[in-house]
């Protein structure tokens, strides 16, 4: 197995002090933001994105990835103890986690959540080791038409990221695509949409827009919402009993496998898989009546699905360049900033980078288990930090971050404008993730389109004549339909459980 050898090499690189430190920082920040209300992995990665201009690619991505999967662990804590799902994907965890906490069994529930997350996280990464190279081996078969088809496939993700209205999602996507066109065109070299303004001739900086939409908007939202400090009751021992473990071990694996398999599909979000695995667990249980009243399997299954899906999300990200969730979209931006264009070629050209990051994910998951089991009480206390303290820190970091990328105060202005814009978009329920996705992928889409047509002398048939390109286009169509069905289903379930329409893209 070539992949295993590469992975072992990855471990030697991932275990160097600096990389180890980056993984620790990443998972710590991730756990923290997963827990803090009003700050999620997406904003955290956005705020720390400018560090990419200081850190090398390996260190930077190890840290950013750590934030992403670390936050998946953190999210379960508030869901179980406070009945506050940090993200929609944590809603199923609340269903049985909070009743358990009320019965004084919050500790074991947290323990099971951490163990399930760990098992699924490791399962997911193992899957990543085997699946990603299969896709990546096809690397050089991908020419411009195949990339174009891949971008079309990526755009079907909008359906999943759009939240409540697909039409709104498409409009926002188009808007993002238009913003991406500002500046020098990717193929001809002619300036576009700069209105004669020098600052615009270089186009918008990806980081300042991301910081604006995800960090500054978050602060503005937080200032509006009333944040009250919530006290946490007694947690008890976090080490689950043997019967708890026996009851949940099957749920863990089932959740993990469902989460992983669906997670490979480009664009399948954790919200979809956590609900699905919870429902399946309930159907398979001999005591379905216990669900919702504190069944430990009801915590294990969705938590496992959550982590398996988020690990599996790295497969379409690394191998195809398709982000399945908002934090992964920002991570994609991080890769692009480093000039590491994700896609089949990434494994070919930057193999050691990819394998080091994957190895760091094994290490990170072990660290998370260690961090989460004994320290969970401490973490729970952190949820009480008042927002008035967090908000100014985020804001200052955002401005510094936006400035340092190109040492340009125009970018700070852009971040501010997009921050305010993001606030209003959120308020009127226009999803911003399609915007950012199209902003990131727009130039690639255009370029591969133009490249394909230069290859074919302007014949559009090039997209359907080539087998790989045609296959991807057909898959896009199928996926588009499946996504719509799954999203509909998840939406109804969310409504049943929460009682209102939630923005399931977050």
């Amino acid at each position, binding site marked *: 197995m070539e992949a295993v050898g590469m992975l072992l090499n990855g471990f030697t690189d991932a275990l160097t002090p600096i990389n180890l430190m980056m993984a620790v920082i990443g998972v710590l920040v991730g756990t923290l933001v997963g827990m803090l209300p009003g700050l999620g992995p997406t904003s955290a990665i956005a705020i720390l994105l400018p560090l990419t201009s200081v850190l090398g690619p390996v260190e930077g991505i190890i840290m950013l990835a750590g934030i992403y999967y670390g936050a998946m662990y953190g999210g379960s804590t508030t869901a179980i103890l406070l009945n506050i799902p940090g993200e929609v994907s944590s809603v199923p965890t609340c269903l049985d986690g909070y009743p358990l906490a009320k019965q004084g069994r919050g500790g074991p529930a947290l323990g099971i959540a951490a163990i399930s997350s760990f098992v699924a996280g490791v399962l997911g990464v193992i899957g990543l080791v085997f699946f990603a190279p299969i896709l990546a081996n096809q690397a050089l078969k991908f*020419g411009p038409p195949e990339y174009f088809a891949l971008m079309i496939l990526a755009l079907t993700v909008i359906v999943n990221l759009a939240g409540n209205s697909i039409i709104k999602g498409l409009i926002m996507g188009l808007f993002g695509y238009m913003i991406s066109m500002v500046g020098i065109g990717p193929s*001809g070299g002619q300036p576009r949409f700069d209105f004669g303004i020098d600052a615009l001739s270089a*186009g918008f900086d990806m980081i300042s827009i991301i910081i604006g939409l995800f960090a500054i908007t978050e602060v503005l939202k937080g*200032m509006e919402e009333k944040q009250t400090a919530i006290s946490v009751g007694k947690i008890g021992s976090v080490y689950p009993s043997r019967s708890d473990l026996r009851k949940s071990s099957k749920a863990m694996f089932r959740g993990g496998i469902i989460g992983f398999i669906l997670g490979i599909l480009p664009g399948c979000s954790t919200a979809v898989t956590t609900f699905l695995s919870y429902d399946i667990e309930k159907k398979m249980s001999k005591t379905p009546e216990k669900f919702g009243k504190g069944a430990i399997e009801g915590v294990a299954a969705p938590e496992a699905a959550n982590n398996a899906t988020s690990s599996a999300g790295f497969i379409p990200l690394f191998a195809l360049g398709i982000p399945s969730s908002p934090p992964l979209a920002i991570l994609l931006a991080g890769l692009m900033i480093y000039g590491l264009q994700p896609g089949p070629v990434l494994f*070919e050209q930057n193999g050691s980078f990819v394998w080091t990051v994957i190895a760091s994910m094994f290490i990170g998951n072990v660290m998370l288990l260690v961090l989460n089991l004994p320290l969970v009480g401490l973490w729970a206390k952190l949820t009480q930090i008042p927002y008035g303290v967090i908000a100014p820190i985020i*804001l200052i970091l955002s401005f510094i971050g936006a400035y340092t990328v190109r*040492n340009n*105060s125009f970018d700070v202005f852009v971040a*501010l404008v997009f921050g305010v814009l993001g606030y209003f978009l959120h308020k009127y329920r226009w999803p911003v993730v399609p915007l950012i996705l199209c902003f990131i992928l727009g130039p690639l889409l255009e370029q591969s389109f*133009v490249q394909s047509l230069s290859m074919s002398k302007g014949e559009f048939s090039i997209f359907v004549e080539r087998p790989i390109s045609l296959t991807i286009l057909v898959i896009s169509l199928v996926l588009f339909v499946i996504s719509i069905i799954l999203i509909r289903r998840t939406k109804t379930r969310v409504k049943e459980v929460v009682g209102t329409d939630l923005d399931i893209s977050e």
Partner: protein
Amino acid sequence: MKKKALFGLLSGVLSVSIVLSGCSSTNSASGKQNKDPGYPTKQIEVIVPFAAGGGTDLTARAMSEYLSEEWGKSVVVVNKPGAGGATGTQEVLKQGSKDGYSVLVQSVSAVSALYAGNTNLPFSVEDQQFLAKMTGEPLAYVVSADAPFKNINELNEWVKKNPDKFTFASNGPTAIGTFGTIQWMDSIGADFSKARLVATNGSGDALPKVAGGHITLAVQGVSEVSNLTKAGKLKILGIAAPERSPFFPDVPTMEEQGVKDIDVSLWYGASAPAGTPDYVVKKWETTINKMVKDPKFLEKLDSINVRPDYMNADDFTKSVEEETKDYTEIAKEKGLVK
């Protein structure tokens, strides 16, 4: 109350950022004076108009490390990419200080090739005081490792027989790869007007597409093609240089294979805004000349597969002028500029 606090915070942060930006552009209005105050007396800012990690950036960083040590003042590299190098170039030439503390490190792509390809740039070669050429590397002509051509002559024959099947990757209509392709086709008597340019976004985009056989040819710097060539995915058919490359001693030069008159190559050099005093130019010339002989610096260049190629300010200026003239003519003749 909350709203007030928010606005107070925003205006505070904004004013900080305005002060910051004010500090970064120290515009002392010194014209052409010839009294040396012991330059450099403070930090020098070096702008690279391309992204970090590229060929220009690597040379600039190796240079700044040497100069910081040599002069005892920090020399800081700042990347300002965008618009094919025009963004960062404009910033130094139009907004930079003319006292030697605002310096530009560019590659040929941001100078001669850029001037040749664009008639409406906000700056011109008259705004530029060249300091010294530092490093350079020849262009390599690469095809997929699976391509049916064993040497450049087989490709020559194929192109002449199949002019309408030939595609080449280049970073734009007037990027260095285009000029490399034109000179080669002219030399072998093939018809460039039938060749199809596939515009790519840097070598990271172009080379895998050539390696996969989607595009016939790429003409890129030796340092850029070395990874995929060593991985056995690309084949170098020839290198356009008078001598074989020390990094690929087995690859014949284009001239050895009978393809003559290719003089396009990649170079990296330093410049400043016009009006920068002579003592600054002298100081850069002498120090860079010393630098390209320094063993530690050379070792660094080896690791990035680039060779030293020193030229003083006058020679550098002349060579850029000639090069720009040549490229402009080629661009006009082949209809690259619309």
